[in-house]
């Protein structure tokens, strides 16, 4: 693409990625921190905003692409990943970000996550996990803890929560991290690392809902309980160790990179390019495709 001409990295600052739209989020919402962390990660990477496509589904957090200067797509509930994959495959030169809430990613769109992982298309998927449905005013989400009383579970939830970390590790995700706006430096860092990872990267962000969330999920409480994986001397190349830590989802708040595959596998778009290089020289023009219909003796 002729227009893919990034300025030198040092020319970009976080505010180059901030749009003029005023967020609709409640004051104190965790998502403010997430979007700030994304600005900072993008500034460090230094790609021009027009070379970035940022896709989301529906929900409070899915408003996020509109608050950036990237090409944004605030699509429909649960379908951000299929759209993001189509964009990346159509133009692998783009930096493709995908974001949404826990309902978007693990309930209505849950079926897409596994397949995005196994295709290993180079997309960074950020889930703002707040264990509640905020935009529809406080119903159970797939990551709500059992027993939680909400608008849709006045008598308490009877279901166990999804464990997003174990889910994506189980499907073979090559890069899995967790962050929180309670640690802005750490959050910006894992987002940047996820974007730099050459393949599908998953980042779970504990982003509290200040309106419908629980007291122990607020940033102040998170600050007290978060445990940086660096300090724990966790080996992020050890997938089983990552799964072991992931099992504590809901009880402990580990932040940092749980798993980074030491030898990244091939991406879908890399394999596609190999195929293009092998096959495109075999045809002269698009009209060649009609030859199969010609009658041959």
């Amino acid at each position: 693409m002729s227009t893919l001409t990034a300025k030198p990295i040092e020319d970009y600052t976080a505010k180059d990625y901030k749009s003029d739209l005023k967020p609709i989020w409640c004051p104190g919402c965790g998502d403010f921190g997430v979007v700030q962390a994304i600005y900072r990660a993008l500034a460090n990477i230094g790609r021009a905003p027009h070379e970035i496509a940022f896709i989301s589904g529906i929900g409070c957090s899915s408003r996020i692409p509109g608050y950036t200067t990237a090409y944004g797509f605030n699509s429909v509930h649960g379908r951000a990943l299929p759209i993001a994959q189509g964009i990346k495959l159509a133009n692998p030169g783009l930096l493709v970000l995908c974001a949404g809430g826990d309902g978007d990613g693990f309930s209505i769109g849950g079926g897409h996550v596994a397949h995005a992982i196994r295709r290993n298309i180079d997309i960074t998927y950020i889930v703002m996990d707040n264990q509640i449905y905020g935009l529809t005013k406080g119903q159970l989400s797939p990551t709500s803890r059992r027993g939680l009383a909400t608008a849709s579970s006045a008598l308490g939830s009877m279901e166990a929560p999804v464990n997003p970390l174990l889910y994506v590790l189980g499907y073979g995700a090559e890069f899995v991290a967790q962050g929180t706006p309670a640690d802005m430096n750490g959050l910006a860092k894992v987002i940047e690392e996820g974007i730099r990872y050459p393949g599908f990267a998953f980042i779970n962000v504990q982003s509290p809902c200040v309106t419908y969330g629980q007291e122990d999920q607020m940033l102040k409480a998170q600050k007290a309980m978060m445990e940086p994986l660096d300090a724990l001397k966790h080996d992020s190349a050890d997938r089983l160790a990552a799964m072991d830590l992931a099992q504590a989802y809901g009880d402990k708040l580990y932040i940092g990179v749980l798993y980074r595959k030491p030898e990244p596998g091939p991406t879908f778009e890399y394999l596609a390019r190999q195929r293009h290089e092998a096959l495109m020289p075999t045809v002269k023009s698009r009209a060649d495709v009609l030859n199969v219909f010609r009658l041959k003796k």
Partner: protein
Amino acid sequence: MNRDLVIGMAGSGGDGIVSAGESLLTAAALEGYHGVLTKSFGPQIRGGESSFRLRLCTQKVLNSGGSLDIAVALNWEDFLKFGGELPVGGQTTVIYDSNTNVAPDRIPLAGVAPAEVLPVPIEQMARDTGGSDRAKNTVVLGLMSGWLGIGRDEMIAGIRKRLSKKGAEIVERAEKAFHAGLQYAEQHPLKTNRLMAEPPATVAKFVVDGNDLCAAAAIVAGCDFFGGYPITPSSEIMHFLGREIWKYGGTMLQAEDEIAGIGAVVGASFAGKKALTATSGPGMSLKTEMLGLASIAELPLVCVDVQRGGPSTGIPTKGEQSDLLQAAFSAHGDVIRPVLAPVSAEDMFPITIEAFNLAEHYQTPVIILSDQEVGQRKETAEPIDASAVKLVERLKPAEKELEHYVRFRFTESGISPISHPGMKGGNYLASGIEHNEHGAPTANGEMHSRMNEKRLKKFSPLKQRRDLFIIEGNADAPLGLISWGSVAGCAIEAFQLATQKGLRVKLLVPRLLYPVSEQVYQEFFASIKRGLVVEQNHQSQLFRLLRMFVDVPRGIETLAKSGSNPITPDEIVDRLRQISLALQREKHHEPSGV
């Protein structure tokens, strides 16, 4: 000598029925004949019943005809499962395998007296020459070659080509089986002469099927992305592109479900590429959410629905035209999506090109309503000249517009220049949420109203596209015949037959079904006193759709049948004749001076 013959053959899945039909069509086409080959199967993956019907003609035909001239039953149980799809009548020559031990006067076709019934030791000949009953289809090819007087050298060449990899011995046996059939036919002339008349002078045709041709047309149209999910009877489109699209720099994604398939297509379109998805009714039900998104985000895409019997799983292997109302109306909100329908497999090429052009021009999803018949039948076609194809590209913002780009700018036409990621200055937010001109989310009533108006009015010029309608006959004819899709192939022939018989009838076949072009229909109906709308669905969906938008004359009747119940040209002509008689009686009774 015959200019038009319909051959039907049925047996069990392992009998090579379909490959026999294809060999016959190819051999005849190489000699210059025209033909239409339809295949029909039971739902089983292996075994089960299998059949073909092949109409061979000295001129181009658009349907697979009515009653069979020649019926071939390898066994009666399987043959009978096809019922009305393989109709035997008084003019039919019935050939069946004598190993069925059924006497010619006891064949299980109640109430029918075929012209001739001939038991032939097909399996016996196959074993004696080919060494196994697997050569039965080759024996039948020999029989047909002999009785029809066609394709002898071509079929032998075909046998050699097809079996060459299996070794000289296999080829030799197959040739022997073919000659055994040929010799049998020469020694047992039929009572009714079935020899084909000389073919037209010009040869060099294409043999196409609707699904493959749709996929190929997409490549010619510049399609660079396909996303979809396997579903009968559309999967051949995905198969074809899975082999071919890479050669032209495109990408094919077999998605995890129908929603993700079209979702990836929406993404590819947002990224600036022409993109296609294909499915059948159940998949259409799942894709409607994304169709709505593409409409409000004003993103071009083409969605092919190869219709089958519905609702729900319905009849996956049999065609129907019952998705029209769904195609026109299924997504929620105030929306128009263009719906196109090809009338034949050959027509799939221009229709697919048109679909991409409309999608790009109007920045909209476009639906192609194909069906199992058009999608999977093979037919002879004129060679396609890709260099004559005119392609339309989406309106891109000019350099100057990118200085202060406004994605959804209100314009006179309702069409706004569209950028894509990678285009500097074109950055915008696409969304399923109602938005203002800049793409910013809004819940403002006035803005919603204006945006709806923008998205709807842009289609006004489309309704003026008379070239998307087949209109024939005298403008002042009092009888009208309307049909669409694959069944229009029967209606066009019925129109020709009725005109030859002196009926004052005219024909209207919309290839653009939605939005409904009020003006085209009103003009057509101006002279119409009575008429007939013919379609392959139970509710008369086109008839009902027209009544929503147009003043349909009260004398218009319907001929509508559920899928898997064939409609024939003769049947349409019969109805037209009845309607014509009724019209004459009506005139006769009209009080004078009125």
